[in-house]
């Protein structure tokens, strides 16, 4: 075996692409987990079709998984891949537009037959017509190599061929000097007992892929990406929806009050329901409701009973929940509403990301019905913000909207685990039991929260409902002055949540030419662009809002400290309008609704333009 050259890289972006049945998400997950354990900083982004199995070999059926890893701090899954693994012509064609000159492209030549080329709309094979000359193409008969290495495995030819993703994974492990042991363990756990032949086949295929690169003349250089400096602590790699589910459970354990999660299946929120359904040993009640309305109203019923009622969905489902959320506003019960936003309107593009439900969250109910609105800024941040949503909802007896999005819900990054149980904030919940001086709509002086009384408490029998309540007694009231007073009280209660909203930190100079403002899942892209601009000497700062109602106390002052304020968001300008309305700031918008996250380079271009 010839000695191969070993080059050190700071950052690499790998994209796996194939048919939705080719196992690209598993391949990406495995590569990511191994990379995480090696101590690289990383961010991932799966991009998959809505169809479970679109026709094989077609453009709509292409499923992709991108992982960006580095020896320094990174914040996005990368604008464009450094290496593309394309399992068929369609996967190559779909991803070609994102490739830059010099990109490494590994293709499975076995999949480039006449039928697949035609399905992908290629008149002639791109491997032969010179159209890929700008790239370093590695044409490998992945399928037949996989098959020939699995001679001794007792599986059908079709089953053997399906192991080709592990062959490709083995190649990538070799190329980027990653150990295969972690995936070997995973294969054993997943199939070892139930399907030992499948386990054997996948192990063998992965080792064969690794060995192939090691032996092949074609692969002369391999790379290493040293670990990134990370804050000391214990880490795991986590997807946003999983972190969100864990945040809810953590708040429940901290409060010692069970959570009730009412939900109706919807992309991209369903896996929160799946995750929580596994946590029954924490007393979590999951309820797959008959529709979105029952999902929210059952959660309100559970809150009335003294549980922490939570519902989760995406935009179309949130629209259906609107009346229920208004009821929770009126009866002043805690409720957490999770919206994992997707591209809209209507059914829109369910698997694609967008931030266009901000107005819906802040304004989208009949009557004056304000609710606190929170938004996590990255996959790992979903843990903290879900926890915060529960804490605020129970402290203020108010429904809280949590705005995640498809990008951070399915994306992943390393998450530094809480050091100890005691390091989690307290979630003090107190149910009223004293009869003396009880008023169903009496209020806590500082938070304006009304008392939470569990049915079953003797002597505190009372009625609540959606009709306007008389101050203190909670009796039905049509009194004009009372309606004015109660409307004001409900609004003021939400405003007082600001006591629990930290000041927004400024990244960069405290005064200057340009302030970049963002919210929610776009943090990574904006932050990466701002850092680059700052390194290039531009006078630009960044703030990123995780609290959208009420806004942080210092926001007005910060917005006024720059010559120009630009709001970057994946919608037509929703935060921008709210900021302009509240702070009279002449902010300009950087907006995009392509169902895709911002690319760092497109934001950087705008920053350069605006700082000029």
């Amino acid at each position, binding site marked *: 075996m010839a000695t191969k050259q070993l080059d050190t890289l700071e950052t690499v972006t790998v994209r796996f692409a194939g048919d939705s049945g080719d196992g690209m998400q598993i391949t990406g997950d495995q590569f990511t*987990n191994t990379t995480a*354990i090696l*101590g690289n900083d990383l961010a991932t982004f799966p991009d998959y079709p809505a169809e479970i199995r679109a026709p094989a070999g077609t453009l709509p059926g292409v499923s992709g998984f991108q992982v960006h890893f580095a020896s320094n701090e990174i914040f996005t899954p990368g604008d464009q891949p450094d290496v593309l693994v394309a399992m068929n012509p369609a996967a190559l064609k779909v991803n070609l537009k994102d490739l830059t000159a010099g990109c490494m492209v590994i293709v499975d030549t076995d999949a480039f037959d006449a039928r697949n080329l035609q399905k992908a709309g290629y008149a002639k094979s791109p491997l032969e017509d010179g159209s890929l000359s700008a790239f370093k193409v590695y044409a490998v008969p992945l399928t037949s190599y996989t098959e020939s290495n699995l001679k001794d495995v007792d599986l059908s030819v079709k089953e053997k061929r399906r192991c080709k993703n592990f062959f490709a994974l083995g190649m990538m492990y070799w190329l980027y000097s990653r150990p295969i042991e972690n995936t070997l363990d995973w294969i054993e756990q997943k199939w070892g007992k139930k399907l030992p032949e499948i386990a054997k086949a996948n192990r063998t295929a992965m080792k064969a892929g690794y060995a192939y690169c090691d032996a092949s003349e074609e692969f002369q250089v391999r790379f290493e990406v040293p670990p990134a400096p*990370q*804050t*000391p*602590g*214990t*880490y*795991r*790699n986590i997807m946003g929806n999983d972190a969100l589910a*864990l945040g809810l*459970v*953590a708040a429940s*354990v901290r409060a010692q009050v069970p959570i*009730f999660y*009412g939900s109706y299946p919807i992309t991209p929120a369903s896996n929160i329901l799946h995750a929580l359904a596994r*946590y*029954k*040993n*924490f*007393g*979590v*009640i999951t*309820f797959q409701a*008959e529709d979105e*309305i*029952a999902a929210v*109203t*059952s*959660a309100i*019923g*559970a*809150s*009335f*009973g*003294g*549980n922490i*009622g939570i519902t989760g969905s995406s935009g179309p489902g949130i629209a259906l929940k609107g009346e*229920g959320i*208004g*009821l929770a506003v009126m*009866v002043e019960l805690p409720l957490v509403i999770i919206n994992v936003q997707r591209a809209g309107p209507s059914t829109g593009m369910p698997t694609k990301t967008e931030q266009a439900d901000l107005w819906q969250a802040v304004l989208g109910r009949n009557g004056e019905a304000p609710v606190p609105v929170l938004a996590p800024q990255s996959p790992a941040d979903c843990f903290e913000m879900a926890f915060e949503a529960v804490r605020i909802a129970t402290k203020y007896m108010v429904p809280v909207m949590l705005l995640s999005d498809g990008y951070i819900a399915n994306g992943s990054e390393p998450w530094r*685990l*809480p050091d100890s*149980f005691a390091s989690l904030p307290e979630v003090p919940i107190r149910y009223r039991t004293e009869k003396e001086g009880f008023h169903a709509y009496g209020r806590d002086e500082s938070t304006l929260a009304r008392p939470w009384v*569990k*049915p*079953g*408490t*003797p*002597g*505190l*029998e*009372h*009625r*609540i*409902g*959606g009709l306007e309540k008389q101050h203190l007694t909670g009796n*039905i009231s049509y009194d004009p002055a009372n309606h004015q007073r109660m409307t004001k009280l409900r609004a003021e209660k939400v405003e007082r949540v600001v006591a629990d909203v930290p000041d927004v930190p400024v990244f960069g100079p405290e005064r200057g030419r340009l302030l970049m403002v963002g919210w929610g899942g776009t943090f990574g892209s904006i932050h990466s662009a701002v850092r680059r601009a700052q390194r290039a000497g531009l006078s630009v700062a960044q703030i990123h809002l995780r609290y959208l109602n009420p806004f942080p106390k210092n926001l007005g002052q910060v917005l006024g400290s720059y010559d120009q304020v630009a709001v970057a968001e994946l919608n037509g300008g929703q935060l921008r309008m709210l900021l302009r309305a509240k702070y009279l700031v002449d902010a300009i918008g950087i907006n995009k609704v392509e169902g895709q996250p911002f690319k760092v380079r497109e934001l950087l271009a705008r920053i350069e333009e605006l700082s000029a």
Partner: protein
Amino acid sequence: MTPATPTLTKKDFVSDQQVRWCPGCGDYAILNSMQQAFAEMGIAREDIVVVSGIGCAARFPYYVEAYGFHTIHGRAPAIATGLKLSRPELSVWVVGGDGDMLSIGGNHLLHALRRNVSLKILCFNNEIYGLTKGQASPTSAFGKTTYSTPMGTVDRPINPISVALAAEATFVARTVDVAGEHLKATMMRAAKHEGSCFVEILQNCVIFNDGVFDKVTNRDTKEESVLPLEHGKPMRFGKDRARGLRLRGLKPEVVTVGEQGVTESDLLLHDESDRSLAYLLSRMDKESFPTPVGVFLSQQLPSYERGVMGQIERARAKRAGDLMELLHEGDTWTVRA
């Protein structure tokens, strides 16, 4: 929970709120009988919760001195389901009208019943929208002239009992607003039932649909118009219980005992455990048959909340949740200082 106070009376369930139904409304009679039933159920007052949707009937919780939740239109069964799952020990009553439950809330009713959640769902059926002032409801008779249907309805009504049976409810009954003792007795049975209860209460709307159930409430006609259902007994009705119900093939027919050789042994026996029989009874048309009143079906099946809580208990028994262990699940790595 606290043991039931043995000395509860009807008065203990009268709230301080002024009742605001129209004078003569059937809801007064229902409220009165219900308050009596609550007092006699042997359930502590604080453990009783009345959940309602929107409509005249839905004002009910305000008038009952217990825990109450007046929610939004149609959603009471869903809210009550969440409540029951969070607090299975409570006695949860759901009150609504025919529009609330069978129109806007039809989906929730269907699923609360089929899941077999232990909710006592009471549908006050007056075959009209009252609170919104007299529009046709999903139970309004075909051709009914109302404000929204000046030339008569052209949509066919739904049959609440048939719907409940088809939705797999495990306790299905019908009673009448003014039949105080029967109504109370039906509630007492519902209170004891584990699983989903659906009780249709025929209720007169004195303003918009007055007299709609006259045949079954009027002293002169009710004997001939009501078929009392009693488990294990032959189906007899009418003056001197002379008339009865017989099955010919799969079709019921009304016969007179002692005429044309008909004896009591020819009559159908009521069997509360037979869903098909219950359905057959629910389908008898009002013109040719008496209106069955009583318990159509009572079936013992484990409730939904029992299933949900059972899974949680099993999961906990297997491995009690440890949060830090959960957070550290999967592959982790440690960066040293």
